[in-house]
């Protein structure tokens, strides 16, 4: 005898109620959602950047620059430990090449002392290995090789630091709800909803913004091509073509010691006012006191912004950078200085920006396609199966509710391919019902009573439905795991669709048909 246990009815009704309840917030505006009582679901489906408009940037931290910086600082550290006041160890050829720092001791007898002094550069990492392997060749040649792990750790921390700086810079621009995530070892994925022309942000992310203050080497000739004395270097001017300055390598104060930077005006010209922190103010005060009357250079990313003369000691810790900025330029520089410097340059590997119009068009087109698709399939199902077609359509409608509900609940992001996935699901969702109905038809043809035919139709179609959907599900799961961005969105909707279509066909349709059968008790039946 055909029956449908009460607990199953409860489950089906609960799931359906869940589906409807959690879909509804999507039809209500954000502002009225806030007025609803707390126990009601308020989560809406997130729209992907391709639907709401926005910009997606994939950035890569320049790992070579990170390595280079690491090797440079290792060279500095080696130099510092060999040259100690009053007790220098003689060396030559201190350099780094292929990620190995090497130098040669002038006196082999110094080896023990050098070994002792350099030992501070080789620390034991948590994994028990040394971060830098120091080896003495016996012929006076000493090499320092950072281990792969310590290089990777350095890169990783550079990426973390970059993410923080990128976040600060983007926050300063006032973009709403940016998403900044690490991707892989050295990449950063930035998503900016509502930003369809990310030029300013790209420009801001394109600067490392390392600012340093140096004395200008007045003894050296400033004519290009002339010899630069040791301890100094030649840097180009940031705005004047062909002009260059020779500056001392030694950093007077670095941008790390800045506390604040603001764009202001001085004599009608946009300038950037900066304020140093305690240490910076002290360093800057001392440097300006010692060098009154001499020019110093403000260097940003290896270009000289300006080289004013020190007229008097600047002790208050505040200064003004003027460099022929326009208003936007001054604002951007102030922003970059406030947010801090990137540890290494960022490359933009991929950009996808969608304007708000295209997004809105895609949603509208998706809705139209979805509605027409549903109507076409619904009409066709009724034309093919009559009353049973109506049952399939109820299941189909519930299926759509369930997909939307799960997407809302998971906070999943609906993308354009995701909409395509839903529309496709409309077509495939009825498949489970088709399998069952066709089976019932066959059973009826063998002369079974309607009750027996329905019973065995459902039970025999069951394995087929499982096998068929599991295989499709495998494809969807793999898409989800291995796909990126939009493809993932498609996979999510497809997978939810497969599960909910199995539920609606096996449980909901069966319940409806059982009810109908028990009420009508048909002696003969045609599907």
């Amino acid at each position, binding site marked *: 005898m055909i029956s449908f246990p009460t607990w199953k009815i409860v489950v089906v009704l609960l799931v359906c109620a869940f589906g409807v309840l959690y879909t509804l917030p999507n039809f209500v505006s954000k502002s009225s959602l806030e007025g609803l009582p707390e126990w009601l679901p308020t989560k809406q489906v997130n729209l992907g950047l391709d639907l709401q408009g926005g910009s997606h940037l994939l950035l*890569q931290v320049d790992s070579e620059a990170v390595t280079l910086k690491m090797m440079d600082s290792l060279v500095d550290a080696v130099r510092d430990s060999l040259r100690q006041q009053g007790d220098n160890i003689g060396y030559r050829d201190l350099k780094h090449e292929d990620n190995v720092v090497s130098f040669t001791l002038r006196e082999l007898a110094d080896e023990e002392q050098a070994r002792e002094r350099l030992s501070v550069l080789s620390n034991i990492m948590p994994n028990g290995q040394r971060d830098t392997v120091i080896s003495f060749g016996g012929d006076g040649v000493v090499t320092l090789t950072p281990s792969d792990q310590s290089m990777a750790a350095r890169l990783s921390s550079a990426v973390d630091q970059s993410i923080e700086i990128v976040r600060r810079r983007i926050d300063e621009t006032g973009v709403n709800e940016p998403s900044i995530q690490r991707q892989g070892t050295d990449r950063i994925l930035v998503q900016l909803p509502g930003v369809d*022309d990310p*030029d300013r942000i790209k420009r801001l992310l394109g600067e490392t913004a390392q600012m340093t203050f140096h004395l200008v080497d007045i003894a050296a000739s400033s004519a290009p091509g002339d010899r630069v004395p040791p301890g100094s270097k030649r840097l180009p001017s940031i705005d004047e073509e062909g002009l260059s300055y020779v500056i001392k390598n030694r950093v007077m104060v670095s941008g790390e010691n800045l506390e604040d930077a603001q764009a202001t005006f001085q004599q009608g010209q946009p300038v950037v006012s900066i304020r140093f922190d305690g240490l910076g103010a002290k360093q800057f005060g001392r440097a300006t006191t010692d060098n009154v009357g001499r020019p110093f250079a403000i260097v940003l990313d290896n270009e000289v912004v300006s080289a004013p003369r020190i007229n008097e000691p600047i002790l208050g810790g505040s200064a003004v950078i003027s460099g022929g900025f326009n208003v936007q330029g001054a604002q951007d520089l102030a922003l970059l200085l406030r947010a801090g410097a990137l540890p290494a340059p960022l*490359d*933009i*590997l*991929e*950009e*996808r*920006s*969608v*304007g708000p119009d295209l997004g809105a*068009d*895609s949603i509208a*087109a*998706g809705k*139209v*396609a979805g509605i027409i*698709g549903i109507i076409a*399939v619904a009409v*066709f199902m009724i*034309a*093919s199966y009559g009353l049973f077609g109506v049952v399939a359509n109820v299941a189909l409608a519930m299926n759509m509710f369930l997909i939307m509900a799960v997407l809302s609940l998971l906070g999943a992001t609906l993308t354009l*391919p995701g909409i*395509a996935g839903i*529309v*496709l699901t*409309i*077509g*495939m969702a*009825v*498949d489970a019902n*088709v*399998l069952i109905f*066709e089976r019932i038809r*066959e059973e009826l043809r063998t002369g079974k009573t309607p009750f*027996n035919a329905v019973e065995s139709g459902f*039970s*025999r179609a*069951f*394995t087929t439905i499982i*096998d*068929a*959907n599991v*295989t*499709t*599900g*495998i*494809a*969807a799961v*793999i*898409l989800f795991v*291995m*796909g990126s961005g*939009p*493809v993932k969105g*498609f*996979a999510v909707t*497809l997978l939810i669709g497969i599960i909910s279509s199995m539920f609606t066909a096996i449980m909901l349709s069966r319940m409806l048909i059982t009810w109908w059968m028990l009420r009508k008790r048909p002696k003969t039946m*045609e599907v």
Partner: protein
Amino acid sequence: MYKIKLVPANTKIPFLKYRFMAFALSALLIVGSAIMFFGPGLNKGIDFEGGILIEVQFPEAPDLGDMRDSLGGLGLGGVALQTFGADDDILIRVQRQPGAAKAQEEAVTLVKSQLESDHGTEISYRRVEFVGPTVSEELVMAAIEAVTVAVFAILVYIWFRFEWHYSVGAIIALVHDVILTIGMFAVTGIEFNLASVAAILTIVGYSINDTVVVYDRIRENFRRFKKMPVAELINFSINETLSRTTMTSLTTLLALLALYIFGGEVIRGFAMAMIFGVIVGTYSSIFVAAPVLLQIGLTHRNEEEDGFKGAEKQGEAEAD
């Protein structure tokens, strides 16, 4: 009430009689696809080729010839223009720029400023995308990996649920469908991008779904009709499931057709690929996947030795 019946009840179409014709046709199409794939090749989108894509809406339909000359003069190499859904909506594609990511970015700026100087600032950028060389190479690898892993995982599942012959048959049908779909991309010149890979994977899922339904019936009938010759049994099973096969294909096609016609320009290529895939997938379940079982020598004895794996449930249902 009159009901549409796509397929009359109790059909006895001798599908297996035509199997060698079908095999020949499939072989021909596969060879054709391979020639198109290795010859003219795919119209790879920027996802796989790298490069720049800009969709611009102009206040009025611009002259494509003038625009081509203007943008072509920027020294960026190949610039392709096409209208996208409407006369004033233009898709500009610029080939991948030599050099690193920075070069792509600079080219975008160059194209934008040229457009603005030619057409004023009234134009709106609907989409700006660029993909650097490293990323596009990774995307190609990821796509190939995804398809391979999916096919392999499905193979294992079917092996687990059915007798090994089915696994082989299903994979032959799958590979058949994937090759023909790729061939379709090569023939039509529809842009091949990440969405196309998603389409192929969905086709894989759909096609296997269709094949499994037929296989399921064949497995069941092996148990029911212990003396029926294998060829006859397979043919009988195809006919039994024919109504379902066509119904599901049609409902899916209806939804896809709605997507193709109303879903907007961006999704059209995807919908087209899917429509093709559904048709090919349906064909292959009937004319490739099922007949191949006979060809690779599935017999009653194979099934018995395998204990009618997975078919128990239906066997029991038969008893009442």
